């Protein structure tokens, strides 16, 4: 009886009738109306932000060319944070307002720490429903055209004289902490080496060595200035203590996100 009962119970959802067509249409209108109600406000905010940026850029003599946002020319990136050490592949994607396939879309990029201007990256063609996508490889060199992402990069799409809003792909720098054994200078001192990856993080960057004092509570032990991406230092930590290195937000900005190494037990 139990099996039969469970089978009968399981079949009930299959008998559910479809939603009445008039309900489906009414709810669709309601959803889209509610969605569009939010859009004008969003568009105004975006327009205001673009105007501010344009004024700022014009003042600095950096306005490359006049652009305006087309209403449904969209761009997105997945994922929007990459790891510069392991090389994270990113896919840029979006739509064009016409919704047609075969349309030409130019993708432009502006890398942090370089010229500050957008430059053309590559052209793509839209597919069904006006959707386009463009993969960016995770490691160099996989493509002669596209570089991999090494720093925070802003992208936008250009179609038919219109420019989309921008999308930013953030970069997390690689940080590597190693302990190495040399003749100790004093009892209790340990020697470490730290490397920082990231084109814009090569010189005079302050890295903090921290030790764990309680769960999720870290206390700074020493600040190390890294030059040329490498820093060698000693610190007064004891065997068994858990340490990590951290590049704070203030040091990583503007081109990178802050980063920490995995916790390391002192030997």
């Amino acid at each position: 009886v139990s099996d039969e009962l469970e089978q009968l119970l399981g079949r009930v959802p299959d008998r559910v009738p479809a939603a009445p067509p008039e309900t489906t249409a009414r709810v669709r209108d309601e959803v889209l109306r509610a969605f569009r109600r939010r859009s004008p406000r969003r568009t105004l905010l975006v327009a205001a932000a673009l105007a501010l940026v344009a004024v700022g850029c014009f003042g600095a003599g950096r306005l490359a060319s006049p652009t305006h946002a087309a209403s449904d020319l969209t761009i997105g990136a997945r994922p929007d944070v990459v790891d510069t050490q392991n090389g994270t592949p990113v896919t840029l994607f979006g739509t064009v307002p016409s919704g047609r396939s075969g349309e030409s879309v130019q993708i432009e990029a502006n890398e942090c720490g370089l010229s500050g201007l957008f430059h053309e990256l590559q052209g793509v063609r839209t597919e069904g429903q006006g959707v386009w996508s463009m993969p960016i490889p995770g490691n160099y060199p996989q493509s002669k055209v596209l570089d991999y992402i090494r720093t925070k990069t802003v992208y936008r799409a250009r179609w038919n004289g219109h420019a989309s809003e921008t999308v930013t792909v953030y970069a997390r720098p690689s940080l590597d902490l190693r302990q190495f054994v040399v003749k100790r200078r004093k009892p209790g001192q340990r020697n470490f080496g730290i490397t920082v990856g990231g084109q814009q993080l090569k010189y005079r960057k302050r890295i903090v060595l921290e030790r764990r004092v309680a769960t999720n509570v870290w206390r700074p032990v020493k600040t190390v200035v890294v030059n040329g991406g490498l820093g060698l230092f000693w610190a007064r930590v004891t065997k068994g203590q858990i340490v990590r290195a951290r590049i704070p937000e203030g040091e990583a900005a503007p081109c990178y996100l802050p980063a920490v190494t995995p916790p390391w037990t002192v030997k």
Partner: protein
Amino acid sequence: MTVDDALLLDLARRGSADAVSELYERYWPLAWRWAYVATGNVVDAEDVAQDAICRAFRELSRHDSNRPFGPWLKRIVVNRAIDTYRRERRRTEWFEDLRPAVPDEDTVASDAVIAAVHDLPQQRRTVIVLHYWLGYGAEEIAQILELPYGTVASRLSRALANLRAILEEERVR
């Protein structure tokens, strides 16, 4: 070409009405079905499904982009149905729209099960609906109803025993 949900969700978050429309086409039938099995009648199903799907699109930014959209929407529908159920008294119409004009053997058996579920005490009926009609496991039901796992398991077991007894009684008659 079928555009995957994650891409459509990203586009919707960036303001694409086309993406919202496409997502609606994909998920409205499901939302409706979940709402119907949770409420048992067209009137409440309409209210619950509409509220849930409007809320889902309004609060799209709260959806974790690493997780699928369907289960998230389903949970909104279920929570909304539970709220409705707590606020209002149970309606007498219960799966009446399912009754075919010309019933066959299968539908008669299925109707008997539906009627038996309707006759269960409310707490037991809820776990049966969540488990067999909405596909939730006991642990998920425990989370939804904020109950210990053991309570849910015991309610499920007792509800099945009740159903069995009701159906046996019907057969004897």
